[in-house]
């Protein structure tokens, strides 16, 4: 899980490098807290998919809108 968390944060930092990640709780909405628009969020999901090899169907994308949601989703499929 620590590796997944680090990977997720690394990908988020590519998209929103200026955000304060110390204030990001694991259950916070990434789109709201990091000001990710639809293009940003799609890019995040694409990056995570590429890094993990897990394809994320469109209907599942909202599950990756938090660190804890993304970790739970990925752990089930890895």
């Amino acid at each position, binding site marked *: 899980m620590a590796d997944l968390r680090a990977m997720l944060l690394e990908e988020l*930092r590519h998209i929103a490098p*200026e955000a304060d990640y110390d204030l990001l709780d694991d259950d916070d909405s990434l*789109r709201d807290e990091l000001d990710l628009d*639809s293009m940003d969020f*799609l890019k995040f999901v*694409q990056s995570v*998919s590429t890094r993990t090899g897990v394809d994320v169907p*469109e209907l599942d994308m909202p599950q990756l809108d938090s660190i804890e949601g993304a970790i739970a989703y990925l752990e089930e499929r890895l």
Partner: protein
Amino acid sequence: MADFLMPSLGADMDAATLVEWTVKPGDTVKRGDVVAVVETDKGAIEIESFEDGVVSELLVEPDAKVPVGTPLARIGDATPTSSGGTPPPQQPVPEATRPEAPVPGTAPETRRPEAPAPAPAPETVPTPAAATPKPTPAATTHGLRASPAAKARARELGIDLSTIQGSGPDGAVVLTDVPGEATRAAAPNRPPAADPAEAMRRAVAAAMSRSKREIPHYYLGTDIDMTEAMAWLEKHNAGLSVNDRVLYAALLIRAVAMAARKYPQFNGTYEGDRFHEPDGIHVGVAVSLRTGGLVAPVIRDADKLNVDEVMAHLTKIVERARNGRLRNSDMAGATITITNLGGRGVPVVYPVIIPPQVAIVGFGRIADRPWVVDGEIAVRPVMNATLAADHRVTDGHPGGLFLRAIERFLAKPHKLEGDA
């Protein structure tokens, strides 16, 4: 032999500072190759060659501020250079017969600089893979790979690029890697760098002030049931991998483009006291920058692209805008613009027209709302669309028809698919 002129970079931008050349005399260039990087109030812009040829002479030194239309270089016929890399002998052309280098990305009748809404790449420009500039010594710094915008910003701040950890492809330094607050290295001969955010703000302020000063806006809004559009999108994306997925923004762009085809008086520019109908429908897409400010790169011929192509173009220009790698061909030639603030949770947008265009459409968030369906109350995903249009060109009646056309296209999204 032709003069390579400083191209139009958008309205209210009539000059730019040359940051660096990415070619040298003797280099062969193809149309669409990046040949230089310039700095504007809206950030660094990559300048593309508009023809094939061999660079014979560079006429401007870096750090020079160059007005639009000024010769930057001379490009000769695409003949092989000598083995030593020396350019072919210059063939002076009499002034009367010297061909005028076209301004890429602009319609023939709108040569003057346009609003700072970036424009999509012209249809005839090679694909991004083919347009990749040849590597030259000037393309790297101390052997490091860095985007032109990153190099420009680092140079401006006096930062050694080798001290920056790159986050781009293969460790390349991109704009967002360059620290915003950095101690400037001693650069006694360089004037103090302007704050890029402040410069961007001034550019936006100039364009929006001009818009409100010159354009008599009228506004019309409508609520659109997005049930069919979202269902179509879900079905379209169902079999696609995440890398090929289409966002609903692509449908909005197609809907506006198709409506503009039906009502061309909303697609064009107003200059010289009259409306000019352009050579196509080129939709500007407002993109907010994480560093602050706004650009509007363009998707050309959006009415002729299918939804997947629109999405591919949208992805490319947003990426370029956010990485500070917009090209001159992205920056000019928009004939109508959209701004979508739905992702920010805004219910209604009252947009401001980007001069010299005559219309802009704002889209708000999609939210479940009570809606009457066959006489009964249902819950439907509803989105507001607001048209701002130039009253010198159109009135409320055609404006209403135009908005209704957008609504009807989104209600029947199969009409937006385009040819595969």
